[in-house]
């Protein structure tokens, strides 16, 4: 519960601090599908892990300067994970040495993505080019470990990894009246400058979303739509020792996360 309170506090603080001018929006995917795929050369035990997937809320808070055709800045924070009431899925690591299962655990795949975006209007079109700079911090929470059939009791683990990147995108809003349609797509290329458990590497985020909205009153609007986000990055395989002396796997060399879901977006323009 304290984690939920802290996230809500940050959210309210952000809303209060920027409410003087510009546009503020809060997007929530209440039940997004979080899928994760990973492989590594934990030789000779295993090459891949298997994750059942989970359904968790995803939050996106965006603040932009008042939009102009000459260009303006925006800042956003995207979050999913246990701090945002994220759920756990089942992770299974096959044993390719002796057959059967080497490790099972409960896994929550979470991340924070802090992004600064410069918006520039495309000539004579209701479309903007997006130039992004982004830092992603990934948090993998694992608990309820069972290794080679033996429960590891209350042993749990957090594996954190970071990626820093830049990219380009396009977004458009169509419709001047009460109803509008909005779409967005961007692709960011990442490097990993410094992180907790992996070497420098690279990767990509591709995100696409689209929805329809209803303008309400005094600059407020509500929007419904769908979002899909692909995040691929090679890191480094990593193992940890449990108190019982077992080896647990908590990081992989090739990691992919898909985030897919329907969203509700509330926007308020401050003039």
């Amino acid at each position, binding site marked *: 519960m304290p984690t939920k309170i802290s996230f809500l506090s940050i959210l309210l603080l952000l809303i209060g601090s920027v409410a003087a001018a510009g546009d503020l929006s809060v997007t929530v995917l209440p039940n997004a599908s979080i899928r994760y795929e990973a492989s590594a050369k934990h030789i000779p035990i295993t090459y891949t892990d298997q994750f059942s997937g989970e359904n968790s809320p995803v939050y996106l808070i965006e603040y932009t300067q008042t939009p102009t055709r000459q260009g303006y800045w925006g800042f956003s924070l995207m979050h999913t994970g246990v701090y945002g009431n994220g759920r756990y899925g089942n992770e299974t690591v096959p044993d390719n040495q002796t057959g059967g299962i080497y490790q099972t655990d409960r896994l929550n795949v979470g991340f924070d993505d802090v992004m600064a975006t410069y918006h*520039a209007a495309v*000539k*004579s079109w209701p479309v903007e080019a997006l130039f992004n700079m982004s830092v992603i911090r990934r948090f993998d929470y694992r608990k309820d470990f069972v290794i080679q059939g033996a429960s590891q009791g209350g042993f749990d683990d957090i594996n954190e990894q970071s990626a820093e990147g830049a990219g380009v995108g396009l977004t458009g809003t169509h419709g001047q009246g009460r109803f509008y349609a909005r779409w967005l797509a961007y692709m960011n290329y990442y490097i990993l400058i410094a992180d907790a458990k992996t070497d420098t590497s690279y990767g990509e985020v591709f995100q696409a979303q689209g929805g329809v909205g209803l303008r309400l009153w005094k600059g407020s609007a509500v929007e419904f739509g769908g979002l899909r986000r692909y995040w691929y990055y090679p890191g480094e395989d990593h193992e940890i020792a449990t108190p019982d002396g077992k080896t647990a796997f908590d990081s992989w060399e090739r990691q992919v996360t898909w985030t897919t879901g329907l969203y509700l977006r509330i926007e308020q323009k401050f003039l």
Partner: protein
Amino acid sequence: MKKSLLMALFFIPPALRAGDIALYYLNNAALEWEGTGYRDNPSGWELKAKPEADALAFRWRQPVAQDLYTQVFYVRNKPYYSFENGNTADSTHQQTGETRMTFNEVSADLRRPLEDSSFGVMVGGQGVSQTFNRKDVLFGGTPTSSTVREALGALGGYIGVYTLGLPPAKGRGYYWDMESFIGHYFWTQNTVKDYEGSMHRNGFFYAARLEAGWQAGQMRLGAGWLRQELEIIVPAGKALPNGATASLPDNKTDFSSPFISVTYAY
């Protein structure tokens, strides 16, 4: 190389109406491929090949409406057999051999300037074909007489930015022509996949072309640098009779080279 000329001849007739066409010569282009992946048998998890060879590229840019342009770019290397090795840290699984890598890539996009800016944005699609002919493969010191031909393919979309600075039409002066884009592969294919595993079909790429030079009338003579990286992720995996790896699911290719170019503008 014959295919390159055929492609060029295919694109030249429509280009003669307007726009500009350019030929690029990439001297000793560095093409570095690294394949990695994990399979349910221990016969290998990485291979690397780093051939350097000349390459040719072709570019056609054409206005299609007011402030709206299309561009097609095609590049192909000159393939030859070069050294390939893998698993160098493990002598029992170490693999060596010869591979002949052929790289074909075509990109097509629509581009439009930004408001009050010398920059513009583009959105387009890219297709890439990459073939590997492997022979003389040793695995853990054991040879095999088998050869294998692997063909990778990928299709994706990209978004990017460009800037173009030209002297007045038919005038003389310096010019620059630069672009950079990031893309995502939505579809990938591999012909060699006895063991497919759980790997997804996806991938990504980025590219940058930095070009500058001198324009005289309708001709431009330029030089610059082309850089690309492609990551093709595809279900793959095959073992040769001696246990060697014939294909891998994660294929990363770096393509980098300085170039000289000749452009004819209408």
